[in-house]
């Protein structure tokens, strides 16, 4: 502005177009700062991958030295996960995780999807405006609280008398509790998927005389199917990674024989990790048993990462579709 003097009214210098240097410097500084914050997330990912796989490698190389990689699949008569005895049978805890997350999906999928269909297709706006917030608030109940419920109420008072399990804690109890835990998540993502189905599809269906139930089953659900699949995958991924319920309600304490029976006590990968860490006060760091924690963590990380990437791809495709 300084050169816009009356004597010389039409001449602009470079300085005028440069703007206020102090403000520009600040702008550049903030840009770098904000970018740094966003890039930090990549740093966290690198750190996670690096620590997990370095420590997992320490475990694997230790295991190769001690008994060979074959020890990861116990071929003996009574295979099981006994880290204190140097027996690391991976199928034991992977099967435990698959059983638990399978049961939790059987519980969460119908409940969550049913709730989502009701909220999205049937509930009047006013009913929805108070039902949905309650569901969302309930989704915030911490998982350790579910662990307590499973251990003290669900197991002894419901599952044990109903299924006649031998112990009040079992893989079944854990699965059902995690199922209830992920139901709000399943409901919320499926509801988003149903909400993304264009109104015109429903109106076309009503217009040719279809009932609401027919419209839901034959038109809305098929149109939203990929979003619902994504909701299922996210729920499974969440169930696989759920730790506190599994550590409290599965019944085994740090070691378990291999089992495929959900009414048995057992171990999931997460429960095995939590209990290894908890018993580690005396043996901090360097024993092979403690190192197995990182190996299990790395396997768990890869499983959930694969599921999340698939779900992410599906959600992205749905977003582009409508």
């Amino acid at each position: 502005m300084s050169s816009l003097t009356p004597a010389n009214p039409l001449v602009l210098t470079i300085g005028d177009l440069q703007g206020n240097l102090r403000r520009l410097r600040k702008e550049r500084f903030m840009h770098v700062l904000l970018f740094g914050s966003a890039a930090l997330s990549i740093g966290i990912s690198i750190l996670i991958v690096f620590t997990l796989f370095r420590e997992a490698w320490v475990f694997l190389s230790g295991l190769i030295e001690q008994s060979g990689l074959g020890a990861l699949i116990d071929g003996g008569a009574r295979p099981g996960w006994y880290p204190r005895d140097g027996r690391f049978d991976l199928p034991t805890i992977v099967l435990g995780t698959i059983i638990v997350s399978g049961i939790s999906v059987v519980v969460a999928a119908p409940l969550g999807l049913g709730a989502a269909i009701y909220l999205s297709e049937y509930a009047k706006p006013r009913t929805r405006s108070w039902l949905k917030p309650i569901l969302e608030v309930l989704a915030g109940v911490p998982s350790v609280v579910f662990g307590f419920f499973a251990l003290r109420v669900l197991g002894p008072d419901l599952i044990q008398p109903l299924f006649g399990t031998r112990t009040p804690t079992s893989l079944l109890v854990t699965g059902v509790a995690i199922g209830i835990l992920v139901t709000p998540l399943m409901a919320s993502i499926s509801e988003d998927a149903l909400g993304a189905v264009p109104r015109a599809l429903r109106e076309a269906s009503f217009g040719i005389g279809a009932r609401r139930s027919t419209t839901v089953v034959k038109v809305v659900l098929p149109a939203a199917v990929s979003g619902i699949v994504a909701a299922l995958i996210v729920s499974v991924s969440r169930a696989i990674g759920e730790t506190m319920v599994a550590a409290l309600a599965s019944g085994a304490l740090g070691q378990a024989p291999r089992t495929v029976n959900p009414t048995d006590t057992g171990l999931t990968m997460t429960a095995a990790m939590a209990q290894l860490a908890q018993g580690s006060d005396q043996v901090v760091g360097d024993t092979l048993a403690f190192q197995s924690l990182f190996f299990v963590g790395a396997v768990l990380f890869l499983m959930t990462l694969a599921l999340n990437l698939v779900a992410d791809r599906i959600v992205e495709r749905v977003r582009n579709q409508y």
Partner: protein
Amino acid sequence: MALTLNAQRSSAEAVRASLTGGKRDVRGMLFMAALLACLLLAMLTLIVLLWDVVAQAIPVFDKRGTSFLTGELGSNPDKVGVSQGIWGSLMIALFVVVIAFPVGIAAGVYLQEYAKPTKLTRFIQLNIRNLAGVPSVVYGILGLIVFVQGLEWVTGGRSVIAAGITLALLVLPIIIITTAESVRAVPAGIREAGMGVGATRWETTRDHVLPYAAPGVLTGTMLATARALGEAAPLLLIGAITGRLASAPGQSIVERMQGKFTAMPIVIYGWSNEVNKPGKKTGLTFEDLNAAAIVVLLAVVLLLNALAIVMRNRFEKGRQG
């Protein structure tokens, strides 16, 4: 008015009756009842469980009063309390506020206001969505290796500092995603007006975009804090104390932060594994005490959640109207 409404309704009924042949749609109604049952079952299970816990916790507050909130961890159910758990959880919340809030909001603003749609930006976005799905127990490994062992000279090892930083990283993606979403909802006109009068992008963001998006951003930060307060698995790996924890008198705040610690969810985990022998004086078992500890934790976590959700709904409604 009432007459036309009635006429409308009866004509709608007449049309429906002629379409369905006057029969009631029994299967349709059963279908709807089944859906409603799913919703109610999901909600009622949770509500009944919560009610159960509150009922079990009332005698504890009755008999113990504030001594339950000021007592320390131990093995005598007549004396133990949750003061150390509350302290640990407050410290963790402090770390979330100090680390995760500014970094998360800055990253969310960057992705929405500054980033050009390059490959790097898309990779950062994908990376953040994936970080949000990493199981919390894996963050515990990160905390154990990097903050407990790697940075022991700062954190003092298995301390609340290591726990706080770990949980701050854990909730970072939540804050980034909600911030980016609420900044995206700011009308373009607000930015254009700001830049049109010569403000730089940062000035526009600071003075116009962020204040407009503030309710949404605040919602995200509250959800994130609630999540951090309820998270137990990473703390187990970092080495929070589940059993007895005697606090040394005369510690400075730094010494206490670098020392052994516990937090509310860990107290609940520890007491869940305790033997259920009633205390001699009060007759309270660890299960009763645990119900009371859960009530203390839930009161804070659910209140934060409820506030966040009510605020978000208000905000959305206000903007539409």
